[in-house]
């Protein structure tokens, strides 16, 4: 059955690993039927850190295996005709970094995805990025950026997005053909130009990653830092700025520390994008984020 296509390029991203077929779970409500689809064809998968609608309107998810030595990621897609999951490919094979390498693992209809890390090298029980940082065999090779054509089910190309580090989150400025990313563990702000396929490290934000990046209408990029402040990147000035005010938190129990964005959602009118935590007043007289 044809899926509606969009002209706009997609985005999405993040890294991960494998999955499987459907195994019915629970029905919670007569009106809202609920079903669980385990990643049965990736039995080592233990997390699903990324899930998004693709440019074709179908759901793509990452079946990750971050607690398994040599664990790999498999992108999957929900198939509504079969009411099951399609396993698209083994991402480790596509970026020429197979599970047995010994390392830490982990427009128009094009879906961009990038890998993260946390799966240990194949011969270690757990992963420490610093322990393996200078180890040429066991270090994480870097976040791989992969372009997937959802109309042809074909990997178009891949590149190294962030050497030696994982990609915590990914944002696509479709108009300017730019990808923005946060690196882990060093929490650097990265820009990747899709036209030239060149990357640039703008600088470090802190130590605790935000889990998401998002754009406003002026093409400025927002995330959060360790202390619960907004971080804003303005392309025209090429500067990262920290808001003077912290985001809302309960002072009885919190200081703002580690109050990072985990996700944001568009407003119901789709005309603005509202982060779950912020009321956009952290920059007085700045006109908010819309």
């Amino acid at each position, binding site marked *: 059955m044809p899926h509606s296509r969009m002209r706009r390029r997609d985005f999405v991203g993040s890294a991960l690993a494998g999955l499987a077929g459907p195994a019915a779970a629970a029905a919670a409500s007569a009106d809202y039927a609920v079903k669980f689809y385990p990643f049965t064809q990736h039995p080592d998968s233990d997390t699903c850190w*990324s899930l998004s609608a693709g440019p074709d309107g179908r759901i793509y998810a990452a079946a990750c295996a971050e607690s398994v030595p040599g664990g790999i990621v498999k992108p999957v897609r929900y198939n509504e005709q079969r009411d099951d999951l399609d396993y698209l490919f083994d991402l480790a094979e596509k970026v020429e970094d197979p599970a047995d390498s010994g390392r830490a693992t982990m427009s128009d209809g094009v879906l961009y995805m990038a890998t993260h890390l946390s799966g240990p090298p194949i011969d270690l029980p757990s992963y420490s990025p610093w322990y393996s940082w200078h180890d040429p065999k066991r270090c994480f090779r870097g976040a791989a950026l992969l372009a997937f054509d959802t109309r042809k089910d074909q990997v178009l190309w891949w590149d190294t997005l962030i050497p030696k580090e994982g990609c915590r989150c990914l944002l*696509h400025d479709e108009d300017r053909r730019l990808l923005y990313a946060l690196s882990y563990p060093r929490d650097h702000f990265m820009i990747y130009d899709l036209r030239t396929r060149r990357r640039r490290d703008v600088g470090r934000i802190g130590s605790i990653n935000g889990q998401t990046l998002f754009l406003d209408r002026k093409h400025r990029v927002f995330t959060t830092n360790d202390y619960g402040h907004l971080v804003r990147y303005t392309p025209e000035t090429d500067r990262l700025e920290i808001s003077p005010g912290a985001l809302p938190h309960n002072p009885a129990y919190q200081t703002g520390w580690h109050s990072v964005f985990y996700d944001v959602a568009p407003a119901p009118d789709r005309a603005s994008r509202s982060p779950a935590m912020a009321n956009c007043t952290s920059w007085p007289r700045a006109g908010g984020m819309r």
Partner: protein
Amino acid sequence: MDATHKDREGVVWRLDPATLRREEVARLEHPNGSAQYVSRGAVDHNGDLFFGHVGSRPCGIFKVSMPADRKKKDAHLPIRMWG
């Protein structure tokens, strides 16, 4: 939470951002484990909800099918460009 809720289940709320009124619409239950840890959510082109799950092996995703009167074509547009 009322007494009908189970341990380790996930709850899906419907929130009116204008009034902050919310209603519970669905509960996520894992066949043999916890379901309260959801990493991400998304809407597909039919308006159905999907949630990424963390905490079991193998892991997986939840689908919440919307009732007929809340189905919406091309509900994923404008597409979300971050994640």
